[in-house]
């Protein structure tokens, strides 16, 4: 007999030992689509979320060149608040997304006070000059527990002024022999002494956090390298895309300017050609700018139905559907979907454009929106067009790959970026001569449910 278990626990069980829960929450960061900052915050939340295991407050420093820079300070301000956070974390059915949302709210509440002040703290990591806590821990790559901190000369004065606590723990964040930062933990409210058990657990969390930062940094470097390669390809492509319209505009303008001019019907034709080519240039410029926008917007939960509705009813789509059967089917009650709403709208518009481009007039384009299960939502676009050949299929998401005469090859790469950004998935099915199906799968939740 074989039993199947999920790779990720969907909720954190109340009856599990708190240590287990803490590590479970932290290790799940690796699988989440959220930003490095969001995931680090979760780690800090986990470290400060209860009176039993956790600490009262956690402060994160990140390495910035040869300096250690204060980044964020998280922690309940009272023991009651700590209890409340633990309640939130251990509520059955509460997922990672809710914790993230909770954190964002907490940080924005603290922004003016704690987090703002910690950002002014910068210490050198230079081995020659670094002699005081907290930077010494990162510099020496050792965990330090500081007691009687007010009377300890090896603690930085400005740092003491800010944290105002007698005892604190410094955990350097190190992975693959590289320092990434430091976490400072204390029990400023309960004044419970930090035990050897607490230190062990905190150092384990520190190791996981360091590896997480390390892999994220590596991933970012890889993305940057890919981006550079794509830029070279892009420069080539754009040259071609821009030159052809320029030749056409130049040539037909010269005809108009010739002494003696041209016949009336030809003048109008030339002007139309020039107008079309200018529109094409405009489109190229728009799409390039759009694609090059480096940062994607943060995903949020939003009601998906009005967004889809707006795209279908938009003048562009209403004009394009002439001569086709556009078949739209929604479930009566659509959930809240996790994505950036504007990007989702653009993605749908791109898919519809592609579907119409691929399908000869008289064909059918179908849009479906439905709940796949309690936590995922599907948006699909199907056409009865020419389909995608196997060699083309592997290139679908490569920037500047296109089979259209005047395409830029940026629509589907944009789609891929949007889906990656919100932790969604894309499925493509296609048969040459029969048509294609693009299925987008998003994280979703029941309407109106809030953490």
């Amino acid at each position: 007999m074989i039993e199947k278990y999920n790779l990720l626990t969907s909720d954190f069980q109340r009856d599990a030992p708190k240590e287990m829960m803490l590590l479970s929450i932290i290790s799940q960061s690796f699988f989440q689509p959220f930003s490095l900052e969001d995931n680090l915050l979760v780690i800090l939340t986990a470290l400060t979320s209860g009176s039993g295991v956790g600490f009262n407050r956690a402060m994160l420093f990140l390495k910035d060149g040869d300096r250690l820079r204060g980044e964020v300070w998280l922690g309940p301000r009272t023991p009651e608040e700590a209890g409340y956070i633990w309640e939130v974390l251990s509520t059955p059915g509460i997922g990672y997304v809710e914790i993230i949302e909770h954190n964002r709210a907490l940080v924005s509440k603290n922004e003016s006070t704690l987090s703002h002040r910690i950002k002014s703290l910068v210490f050198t990591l230079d081995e020659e000059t670094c002699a005081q806590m907290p930077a010494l821990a990162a510099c020496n790559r050792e965990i330090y527990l500081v007691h009687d901190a007010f009377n300890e000369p090896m603690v930085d004065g400005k740092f003491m002024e800010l944290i105002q606590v007698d005892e604190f723990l410094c955990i350097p964040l190190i992975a693959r022999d590289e320092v990434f930062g430091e976490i400072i933990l204390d029990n400023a409210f309960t004044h419970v002494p930090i035990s050897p058990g607490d230190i062990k657990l905190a150092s384990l969390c520190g190791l996981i956090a360091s590896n997480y930062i390390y892999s994220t940094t590596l991933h970012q470097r890889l993305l940057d390298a890919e981006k550079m390669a794509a830029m070279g390809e892009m420069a080539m492509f754009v040259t071609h895309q821009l030159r052809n319209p320029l030749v056409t505009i130049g040539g037909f303008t010269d005809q108009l300017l010739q002494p003696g001019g041209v016949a009336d019907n030809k003048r109008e034709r030339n002007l139309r050609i020039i107008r079309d080519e200018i529109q094409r240039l405009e489109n190229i410029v728009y799409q390039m700018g759009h694609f090059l926008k480096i940062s994607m917007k943060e995903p949020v939960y939003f009601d998906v139905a009005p967004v889809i509705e707006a795209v279908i009813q938009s003048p562009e789509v209403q004009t394009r559907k002439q001569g086709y059967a556009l078949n739209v089917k929604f479930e009566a009650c659509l959930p809240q979907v996790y994505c950036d709403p504007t990007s989702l709208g653009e993605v749908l518009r791109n898919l519809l454009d592609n579907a119409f481009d691929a399908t000869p007039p008289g064909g059918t384009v179908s849009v479906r929106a439905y709940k796949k299960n309690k936590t995922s939502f599907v948006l699909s676009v199907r056409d009865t067009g020419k389909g995608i050949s196997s060699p083309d299929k592997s290139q679908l998401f490569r920037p500047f790959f296109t089979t259209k005469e005047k395409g830029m090859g940026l629509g589907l790469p944009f789609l891929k970026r949007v889906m990656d950004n919100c932790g969604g998935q894309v499925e493509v099915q296609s048969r040459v001569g029969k048509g294609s199906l693009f299925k987008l799968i998003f994280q979703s939740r029941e309407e109106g449910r809030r953490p």
Partner: protein
Amino acid sequence: MKKILVVEDEKVLCLLYEEELGKEGYAVTVVYDADAALEALGKTAFDLIITDIRMPGKNGIELITQIMGLRKDIPIIINSAYQSYKEDFMTWAADAYVVKSSSLDELKLKIRELLGE
């Protein structure tokens, strides 16, 4: 009347070349890809070929290679949006390389040169 074959996938550019070179007194035939060019070469004795490089299907460099195999001594002008193909030694087999520009003067000049006018 000298006969020119234009190989270019962009239809509106073909229209421009057809009209502009026609005005110069040439008989212009336009085709949209390399296969159509080879077919036209089998039927008509052209005096000059103008070809793009990036085209769907066979590209311009493959086309030039095949024309060389036909052992017809027809001058060829490469007319591409890219400068960089000049680095591909196969493009050296062509008689001229004119980068696409908003003025057709250079192209017209090269045609006259190659046709000995």
